């Protein structure tokens, strides 16, 4: 019976994907379709926009969620990979590939008009690979200064420090964006646009500011107390992790993942380990899966507690902030006892985990679950129904479901907008298909929905841990893995549900012990990209409050 159902399901998926293939070939007959880890479609650069549009508007299965936009220097050509998936079913994935052989003046067509999230990603690709996108309204470099010499992710990049000397001069902010557009006659026009109006009162919120949660810089145009426009400047702690990874072995790269979103360090690392394990076909022992899942969920509680604490602090309630920290401390202690680290715990390795759980682990975690449930009630009494808190969160910063999908806002924020986007449900990994938990979805889309979502997700995480903690099987904690891992040639994707949304890893391997190209999908970048939209016409205080409810982590954006 179950086998029949499974077969039927497989058959359905097969059918749907066959239909999609037909649709692609009908739209672009020259498209090359390959069955790799994901269904991969290669088209010429002038057909890409058309194909993306058709796929997005496909009524049966709309591919309207742009998960990753990856620029790759393929050697002979500079290209971009787009990982699309359907917002209704995240497991339906499709990779579009395009590229240009012109290395002097590479131009591709922008898909910003279809997927808003492409905006910042295309700017990132421009900064790092030098590809300009036609019709993108704002082609400034993201992360890097406009005067940076060279494009770091190109294989022929000259990293000589003399080319880009460390400047101690103060540089004025330039609010003029170059762009390149195609007019009706099909001619390309290069011009510039002013980001702000002549008389705008512009205030810099960041890079040094108590509520940007890191070195983030929002150029904010104010009309009295009301936010008119926000311009996001990022890259103050850009470390070039993706570039660095290209000359390091996989076990070495693992350490970088912890330093992206340091609050979901363990989950990020889980994502990269999964990508490598899938590619190298390494079987992870059952015990390691249990430990990974439990640690991931503890990590999620830890992160959500901090998010809750910071959000209350952004709203001006310092005491609540300390309460969140108090509970978080217990999880950090458990981490420390397990593997010595508190924030960055270095627990996952390729093939399993590095440290086994300690003897009292189960006891500690179980007492924490009881304690935490009690404290959740306290949070509810203390803050969740406070009349001032409600006034600062309800109907503030509303993000509609369409916008959430368009800006690729996932995680508690996306689910607060009514979008079912939990990777743990859609594409279960580790032990998430064996445990029972609810995906918390609210449809209001305001700060309060995001706030409540986090608290409810803490409860769900506790529930997941409860189901696993007594059943950790005996056995190895790590599979036998060679010290130097060579991945077979190919492109590998993995997706996990980090605390702030979907974290993704893309590895392009050319059979070497180093990755040819490695890309991390940053959930925080999507959150920040939605900020200008949802903060418009809100008060400047609410801008801070909304920032707290979105809960972005800056190193995750800058990478």
């Amino acid at each position, binding site marked *: 019976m179950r086998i029949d159902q499974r077969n039927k399901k497989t058959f359905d998926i097969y059918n749907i994907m066959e239909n999609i293939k037909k649709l692609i070939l009908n739209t672009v007959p020259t498209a090359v379709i390959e069955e790799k880890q994901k269904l991969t479609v290669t088209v010429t650069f002038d057909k890409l926009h058309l194909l993306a549009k058709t796929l997005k508007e496909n009524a049966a299965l709309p591919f309207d969620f742009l998960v990753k936009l990856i620029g790759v220097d393929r050697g002979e050509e500079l290209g971009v990979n787009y990982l699309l998936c359907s917002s209704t079913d995240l497991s339906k994935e499709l990779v579009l590939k395009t590229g240009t052989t012109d290395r002097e003046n590479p131009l591709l067509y922008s898909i910003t008009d279809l997927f808003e999230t492409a905006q910042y990603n295309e700017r990132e690709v421009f900064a790092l690979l030098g590809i300009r996108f036609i019709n993108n309204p704002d082609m400034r470099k993201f992360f890097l200064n406009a005067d940076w010499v060279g494009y770091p992710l190109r294989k022929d990049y000259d990293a000589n420090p003399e080319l880009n000397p460390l400047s101690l001069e103060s540089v004025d902010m330039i609010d003029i964006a170059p762009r390149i557009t195609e007019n009706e006659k099909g001619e390309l026009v290069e011009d510039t646009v002013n980001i702000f109006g002549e008389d705008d009162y512009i205030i810099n919120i960041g890079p040094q500011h108590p509520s940007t949660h890191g070195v983030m810089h929002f150029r904010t145009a104010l009309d009295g107390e009301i936010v008119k426009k926000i311009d996001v400047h990022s890259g103050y702690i850009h470390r070039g992790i993706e570039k660095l990874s290209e000359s390091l072995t996989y076990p070495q790269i693992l350490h970088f993942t912890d330093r992206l979103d340091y609050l979901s360090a363990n989950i990020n690392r889980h994502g990269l380990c999964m990508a490598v394990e899938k590619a190298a076909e390494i079987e992870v022992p059952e015990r390691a899966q249990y430990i990974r899942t439990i640690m991931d969920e503890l990590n999620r509680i830890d992160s959500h507690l901090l998010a809750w604490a910071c959000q209350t602090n952004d709203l001006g309630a310092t005491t609540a902030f300390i309460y969140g920290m108090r509970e978080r401390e217990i999880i950090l202690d458990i981490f420390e006892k397990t593997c010595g680290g508190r924030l960055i715990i270095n627990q996952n390795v390729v093939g399993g985990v590095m440290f086994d759980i300690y003897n009292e682990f189960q006891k500690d975690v179980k007492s924490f679950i009881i304690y935490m449930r009690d404290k959740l009630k306290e949070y509810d009494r203390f*803050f969740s129904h406070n009349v*001032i808190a409600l006034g600062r969160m309800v109907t503030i910063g509303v993000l509609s479901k369409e916008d959430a999908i368009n800006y690729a806002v996932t995680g508690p924020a996306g689910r607060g907008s009514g979008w079912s986007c939990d990777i743990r449900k859609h594409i279960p990994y580790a032990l998430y298909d064996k445990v029972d938990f609810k995906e918390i979805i609210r449809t209001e889309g305001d700060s309060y929905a995001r706030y409540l979502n986090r608290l409810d997700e803490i409860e769900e995480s506790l529930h997941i841990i409860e189901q696993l903690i007594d059943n950790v099987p005996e056995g190895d904690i790590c599979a036998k893995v060679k010290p130097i891992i060579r991945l077979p040639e190919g492109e590998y994707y993995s997706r996990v549900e980090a605390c702030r949304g979907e974290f993704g890893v893309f590895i392009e391997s050319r059979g070497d012990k180093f990755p040819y190209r490695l890309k991390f999908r940053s959930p925080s970048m999507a959150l920040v990209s939605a900020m200008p939209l949802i903060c418009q016409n809100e008060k400047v205080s609410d801008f801070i409050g909304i920032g707290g409810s979105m809960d972005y982590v800056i190193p995750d954006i800058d990478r």
Partner: protein
Amino acid sequence: MILNYSQPLEVTNLTSWLDSTLRGSLSEFWVLLIEFVIVGALLLAAYAVIALILIYAERKITAFFQARFGPNRVGKWGLLQSVADMIKILLKEIVKINRSDRFLFFAAPFFMIVASMLTFGAIPFGKALHAIDFNIGVLYVTAVSSLGIIGVLLAGWSSNNKYSMIGAMRSGAQFVSYELSAGFALMTIVVLAGTMQFSTMIEGQRYCWNIFNGHISSMIAFVIYLISGHAETNRGPFDLPEAESELTAGYHTEYSGLQFGFYYLAEYLNMFIIASIATTVFLGGYLPIQVKGWVDFNGIMDYIPSYVWFFGKTAVLIFLSLWVRWSFPRLRIDQLLNLEWKYLLPINLVNIVLMVILVLTGLTLTDLLPGIF
């Protein structure tokens, strides 16, 4: 005679002894001059000492709310922490800001501290511990305490900093609004007490505090006064002008060293001033709890010196203010102004009329139950 015997700890004896000794050997002019200087010096010293104690107390109480220890390194239980902080702040460099309006920038903190000092001087701390007893005491306090806003606005304007500017503008709007409510709440009690002089007002509350005397109306006035007074001190849910998480430090972002210290001191002292005015006007000031007819009980209560009563009552109100401050998140500017102009002010106006009716128709507690109160 009995009173002198029962209150050995009052300072009345000390002051009258000092006065008569001076008069014995000096002319009227010198007596007054010396007394003025002594009173001034004592007030200044009290100002600083009370601020230091308040800072320590707030840090300890906050720590208690927040499951922390608070200062516990300098001295026993961290008692010397405030002193150490004060020494540090005195030694700190006063940073000069480029392209700021130098004169106004330096003048601003003085407005703040002078305004709160002037108010501080008019507070009755206890029997014979009352520097100036105007016949328009309430009006004077209301008028002088609102000078402080000039310091805030000037600081915001002269700092050449957009955060400071926004903070100062918020503060201006907030202060003007809430000063109205605070003033009206006090006026309600002036209607009840029939005087603006603090000493007469306190004496009138010997057996029945104003907060009970005017029952409904007084209670409303008391609550409104606490809210608006709290808002005037820029603390708690009303700390928008500083709004640490939005405007870094609001209007005093650019200040350092002693100048910042002035703002810091003034903030704490304003909290004290608001609480002490509430004590004086609503809670019987420095008078002990007295019940008509209970002679022994009254005698025992009287034995506790008046300044202890005053500081005790004030401390309770300050604790309330801290409790609110550390429990609530911050309001937004429009919510803040809504609260004042749409709720507090209309309620207040109706309340004054209500109080007038209560007094005229003889419905206050002293009129209704003269035997008890």
